């Protein structure tokens, strides 16, 4: 049959849509990610002594640690779903470019991570009595920038570890060191913003995030096909 295989971005979109469809098949997958994030926040809240540490100091750290761990969960899932009945093989024999698989998965993961953040941020503001107000838009920018880096790295390593016996453990071990240069600037920028400091103040951190995103989004997209060819 004379068919035309979809292009790189079209195929990526297909993969992302399929991943999200599976995610939302049980409407509760996303729900549980959010609940996970919320409960983590609560655990954090109670694990510290609020008389010793003020909420304003605690909040940025709590936010970013929560985002990091819930993000890891989501990314692990995104390849776990493929390997169960070797569905990944079906993607690999199809005419879809390898990069599309990566981009599609990364896109779905980005939606996932941003979705969780969209819920967790107001929750933190509520629990910790943060005055978000004006900081909201720049904060959203920080979250998007950081999420791109997190997702690029996380998706690549999730793909790599999916075929190993210890995926759940190995993924954080490999990915967390790479998350540090994301989490530090993100948490610092967040702290500055909620403390009401100026945007210019956050800028040096954001620059680092942007640089990281550029380098690793490319590097991971190019590296992904190498992880596959068996």
């Amino acid at each position, binding site marked *: 049959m004379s068919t035309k295989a979809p292009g790189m971005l079209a195929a990526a979109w297909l993969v992302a849509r399929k991943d999200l469809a599976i995610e939302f098949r049980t409407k509760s997958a996303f729900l549980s990610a959010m609940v996970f994030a919320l409960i983590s926040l609560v655990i954090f809240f109670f694990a510290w002594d609020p008389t010793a540490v003020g909420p304003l100091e605690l909040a940025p750290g709590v936010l970013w640690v929560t985002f990091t761990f819930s993000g890891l969960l989501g990314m692990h899932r995104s390849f776990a779903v493929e390997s169960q009945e070797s569905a990944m093989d079906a993607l690999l024999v199809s005419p879809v470019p390898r990069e599309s698989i990566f981009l599609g998965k990364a896109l779905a993961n980005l939606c996932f991570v941003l979705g969780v953040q969209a819920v967790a941020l107001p929750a933190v503001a509520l629990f910790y009595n943060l005055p978000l107000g004006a900081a909201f838009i720049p904060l959203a920018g920080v979250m998007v920038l950081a999420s791109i880096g997190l997702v690029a790295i996380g998706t690549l390593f999730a793909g790599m*570890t999916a075929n190993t016996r210890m995926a759940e453990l190995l993924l954080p071990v490999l990915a967390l060191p790479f998350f540090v240069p994301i989490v*530090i600037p993100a948490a610092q920028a967040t702290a500055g913003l909620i403390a009401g400091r100026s945007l210019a103040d956050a800028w040096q951190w954001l620059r680092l995030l942007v640089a990281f995103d550029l380098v690793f989004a490319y590097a991971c997209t190019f590296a992904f096909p190498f992880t596959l060819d068996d």
Partner: protein
Amino acid sequence: MSTSAPTRRGFDPIALIAFAIVVTAYVRAIWFTPPEMTQGYAQKILYVHAPAAWVAFLAFGLTALAGAFWLFLKDPRLDRFAESSAEVGVIFTTAVLVTGPLWGKPVWGTWWTWDARLTGTLFLWFVYLGYLVLRSAVDEREMRARYSAILGILGALLIPFIHLSVYLFRTLHPLPVVANTSGIQMPPVMIKTFFLAFFAFTALYIAFVRVRMALATDRDALDDAAHGGAHAG
């Protein structure tokens, strides 16, 4: 495949030479180089600490390079080199991380401080520990080589970012306890000993990697023979 039957054991000549240089360097460091004025004998740790750090960087750099070449040449020797170099690098980094606090306690009064260089070293150690864990988690030889090549390369890309972010982190909020690490002015005797120690550690690195590679070669060959390749790829 370029593996032969399990090979030579016994003492590697290069290891012997390296060992001799190390001994020379330390004899010189301990008896023939005067102690530093303010720090006293604690400063002798420098002759382990700094060269170990240098060799660790060298080892990780070569690991990344070998990985990059492996992706195109697929020569199993490159992978075995990357593995060996990473392992030796982790050992040397561990030496840095152990000697550092040992030195820091008398000099700074604290075992650990979150200074940019210290933290960077710690994360380097994490990245390459992860590298070794990844290697041990993948059975298939080809897949293992591929995955670790990629991780090695990404790790190399990561280092400047970790350095930058940790550096920025600290310059914004300098910790009061951080001592000045850069201002050690050394007399020429010390510098000579210092360079001898560097040379000694580099030789040691070469010797370790050689031994470790021979081990990897034997392991692959044994694996092939014993398990019919079940653990390999």
